[in-house]
């Protein structure tokens, strides 16, 4: 039986296949709680979870907050514009102050890759990565895996195409690590300027031809074009991007009948995905959102358990 012993959840890159499967299994058990008339269990009663978001977010922040509250933890959000960072405090100092207030879990989203790792090293409390720049977004990766596994019954051998702005996408990276570890075959598709060559070293196929990515695929994970992270001219215009890479009903004509369409949100309808596809029969986009809460409950539960056990052992040994 696999055990979760990690203090933090920072990236899917560092997790073993067994650890990923443990989170998914735990998440399946948590899914039912959100369907109960009273959507709450007392498991994390008395624990405090702080959400620290340095980038705009609706889905992930609400999802983490609901996950904490459904486990009876106290959850609070810090809006960055109100924080002391605007007075010149460093991130590390700010986090240490939060730790000194005896918070148990810090959930952070930050534009700089590796910022969660930095905090995890300097704090004793659990750090959960809710997206660090274009590096990783582990809970999104996990909820995508959960959604695919639930709909398809397995991940091994599935053909998954990730389409769009691969270069800037932390979702692509977390998906790639998770999917490859669990035995899926990944194709990355996008304009050449947004397609890092290094991905081929991770056993992913790359292509600039959308039709090639759709043909034979079991799953399409369609990503948003992250204009806010792009510097310089990577493609001529949004219109031209849409002409070549928008997933439309016409382009899905040759697709498998049981194709799944995923999108991590927020969607730009008409740019990377046509409205008919987003709302169509293949789409499992809202299932992803539902699974997001279950996955985050599982993650909060597992890191909290590991830290309580660690603390108790430490007290015994002292």
């Amino acid at each position, binding site marked *: 039986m696999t055990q*979760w012993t990690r203090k933090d959840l920072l990236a899917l890159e560092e997790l073993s296949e067994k650890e990923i499967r443990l989170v998914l299994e*735990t998440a399946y058990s948590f899914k039912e709680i959100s369907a109960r008339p009273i959507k709450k269990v007392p498991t994390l009663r008395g624990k405090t979870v702080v959400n620290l978001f340095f980038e705009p977010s609706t889905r992930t922040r609400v999802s983490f907050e609901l996950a904490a509250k459904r*486990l009876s933890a106290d959850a609070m959000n810090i809006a960055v514009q109100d924080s002391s960072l605007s007075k010149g405090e460093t991130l590390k100092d700010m986090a240490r102050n939060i730790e000194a207030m005896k918070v148990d879990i810090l959930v952070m989203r930050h534009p700089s890759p590796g910022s969660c790792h930095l905090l995890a090293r300097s704090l004793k409390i659990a750090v959960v990565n809710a997206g660090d720049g274009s590096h990783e977004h582990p809970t999104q990766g996990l909820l995508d895996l959960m959604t695919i596994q639930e709909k398809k019954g397995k991940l091994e051998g599935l053909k998954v195409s990730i389409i769009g702005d691969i270069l800037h996408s932390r979702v692509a990276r977390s998906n790639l690590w998770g999917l490859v570890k669990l035995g899926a075959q990944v194709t990355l598709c996008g304009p050449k300027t947004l397609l890092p060559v290094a991905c081929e070293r991770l056993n992913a196929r790359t292509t600039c031809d959308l039709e090639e990515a759709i043909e034979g695929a079991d799953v399409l994970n369609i990503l948003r074009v992250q204009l806010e992270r792009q510097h310089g001219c990577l493609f001529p215009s949004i219109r031209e991007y849409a002409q070549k890479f928008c997933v439309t009903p016409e382009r899905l004509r040759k697709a498998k009948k049981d194709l799944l369409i995923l999108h991590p949100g927020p969607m730009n309808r008409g740019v990377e995905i046509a409205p008919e596809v987003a709302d169509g029969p293949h789409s499992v986009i809202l299932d992803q959102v539902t699974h997001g809460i279950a996955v985050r409950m599982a993650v909060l539960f597992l890191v909290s358990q590991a830290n309580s056990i660690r603390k108790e052992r430490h007290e015994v040994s002292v």
Partner: protein
Amino acid sequence: MSPFREKSKILDGEGMEKTVIRLAHEIVEKNQKDLGGLVIIGIMTRGAILAQRLSEAIRKMNGATLTLGTLDITLYRDDLTQVAQSPVVHETRIDFDITDRKVVLVDDVLFTGRTVRCALDELIDFGRPRTIQLVVLIDRGHRDFPIRADYVGKNLPTSLQEIVQVRFQETDGVDEVVIEEKER
């Protein structure tokens, strides 16, 4: 290997079957008026198997099909960190409303009463049952809480050094109840 050795066998397969049938009779006797309205909920993992067997026995005996559910109490435990390894969370499956229903709660062994306390807390979060009755296969004593069972398969006086193992075909490959003791 296992640091525990078997001390004595309390029930074999046949004994267990007889006990289950007797418990089923007792449940039917006590709930004659609205047997069909009864809800039977087993505590994961072995209580759920016992619940399944009880409902099957009642169906054979009486033709009544009871509503069946399972309850995983991991998330309600007060001793989560005291369990040696991280606990496994199983799914709770109660996809019906228990409000105003008569609930029969099933577990394999009644010991400190802490599991039942968790189960009662969790059940009450699902609604407001009219009554909750408790069935256990083995009552081994040593209660920490003021909890008792309405139906007991076997009362088994034990010492705290002993462990009562209930094994079922479905999970352990054999139907039996044994007392084990730590190897000295």
